[in-house]
């Protein structure tokens, strides 16, 4: 369905996407992870045809994507960008007018469910509510590919929970490719089917969530025991506290060793170890 073939995108001297080749076929919720400036938004804009690639080609359902031929079956709305200051009802109606596949019933049901005031004008809403409105508009589209860039930015814990429910409900009603970029890695894990991790414009991981959960683990114990156990494994990083050591492994699961303990690695930890970000990310 989606094919990036040796795609590079440069902004002057800066390379945002570097020779990216990726294929996405299955209808799933994909989680796009990467540090700030890793190229997540650029990737989404390229896919939506909002930007032209400097090199390489992008295909959606076999049709080549270009900035002039924006694919009709891709929906990408940025929450942080301005909208017309219409009443919410009008804004949704307008979105339906310009999108032939818009599911008005779903949009209205979500507006009711999340107790969003349809009579309010867009500019009077809080940032979180604006984001929720644009997310509802995106998900109400029956387009084959939905791109959500930082959709939970500005959401409190309750709104985030509601968002994940909305995402899951939309996907179960209409299975398709939904790509969500977020920094709240562990939260999205409950609904996402595949993780795409990019760093410096290049993919460092593109795997099914179950496979990742299986492969990402920690070995903790006495330093010598951990070193011996993890000798032939793909160790992402190690941490030492006194005579104890923790090895962060991304490899096939091993049997529980007698002198060390194996525990699951969270997606957040995996993300940090994979892209070498700071501990706050």
């Amino acid at each position: 369905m989606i094919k990036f073939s040796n795609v590079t995108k440069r902004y002057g001297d800066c390379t945002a996407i570097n020779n990216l080749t990726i294929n996405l076929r299955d209808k799933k919720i994909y989680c796009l992870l990467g540090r700030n400036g890793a190229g997540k938004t650029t990737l989404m804009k390229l896919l939506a045809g909002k930007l032209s690639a400097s090199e390489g080609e992008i295909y959606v359902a076999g049709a080549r994507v270009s900035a002039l031929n924006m694919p009709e079956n891709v929906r990408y709305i940025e929450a942080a960008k301005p909208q017309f200051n219409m009443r919410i009802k009008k804004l949704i109606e307008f979105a339906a007018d310009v999108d032939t596949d818009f599911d008005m019933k779903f949009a209205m049901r979500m507006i009711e469910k999340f107790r969003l005031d349809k009579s309010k004008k867009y500019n009077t809403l809080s940032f979180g509510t604006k984001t929720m409105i644009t997310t509802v508009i995106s998900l109400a589209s029956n387009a084959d590919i939905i791109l959500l860039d930082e959709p939970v930015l500005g959401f409190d814990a309750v709104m985030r929970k509601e968002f994940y429910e909305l995402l899951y409900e939309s996907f179960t009603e209409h299975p398709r490719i939904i790509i969500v970029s977020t920094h709240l890695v562990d939260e999205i894990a409950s609904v996402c089917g595949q993780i795409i991790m990019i760093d410096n414009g290049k993919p460092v991981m593109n795997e099914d969530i179950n496979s990742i959960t299986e492969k990402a683990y920690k070995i903790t114990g006495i330093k010598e025991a951990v070193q011996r156990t993890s000798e032939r494994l793909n160790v992402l990083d190690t941490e030492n506290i006194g005579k104890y050591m923790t090895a962060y492994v991304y490899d096939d699961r091993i049997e529980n060793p007698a002198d060390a303990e194996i525990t699951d690695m969270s997606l957040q930890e995996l993300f940090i170890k994979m892209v070498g970000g700071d501990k706050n990310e």
Partner: protein
Amino acid sequence: MNKQKKYFAVSWVNFRYTTWIAYLAAGICVIAMIVDLFVDTVMGSKDIFTISPYSMLYIIPLIAPVLIATVNYGKLMNIGVKKKTFFSACALNYVIFALIISIVGTLAYYFVDIPLNKIGYNFYGIIDIFGWNTSIFDTFFSQLTFILLIQATVHTLAFMQTKWYGWAADILIAAVVSVFTPIPVLRGAEMFFFEKTMFARPAIIHILICLIMAVLFYLTNLLYLRHREGN
């Protein structure tokens, strides 16, 4: 049908949002002209030269394309409008603007300016300046195509401003005006260009030249759309 629905929806938003600034500016100027005329009449000085109020409507094709190409473009892209839909919908906006202003201008000229000038007023408007008054056909279509040309030019220039060639075009225009106008020989060339385009007679020549230039200018947007970021 769906395509047409999209074009009309985008055009309607273009008419309704942001462009109100252009209507407001034009409206204030028209009202100011009418008030001025009323005061002149009350003061008994109706023979004083007065700019026809309809001429102020030309503010709309000068301001609205700037607002559409800059403010509305980003918002429309961000709600899911495709670039080609934007391109076609804006063309529809500009044709409707041109039609309305030309109709109002023509009616104002023949049913306000001419009758009032006969009883001693001294109205002078764009139609008189450009000499588009040989017939109703001339008055209407000369305005229509000239307004289309203004809008296509302003839209194109405003749209290009995010790229280096937009700035280059600005500098080029400023350079032509500042270099050509003071030097008599070059001024002659400039005059020749305008005489053959804007002031060309018979009317059909002017109408065709304006129409062709408007279409060509507007079509160049397809080149910029390729490079312009979606929002």
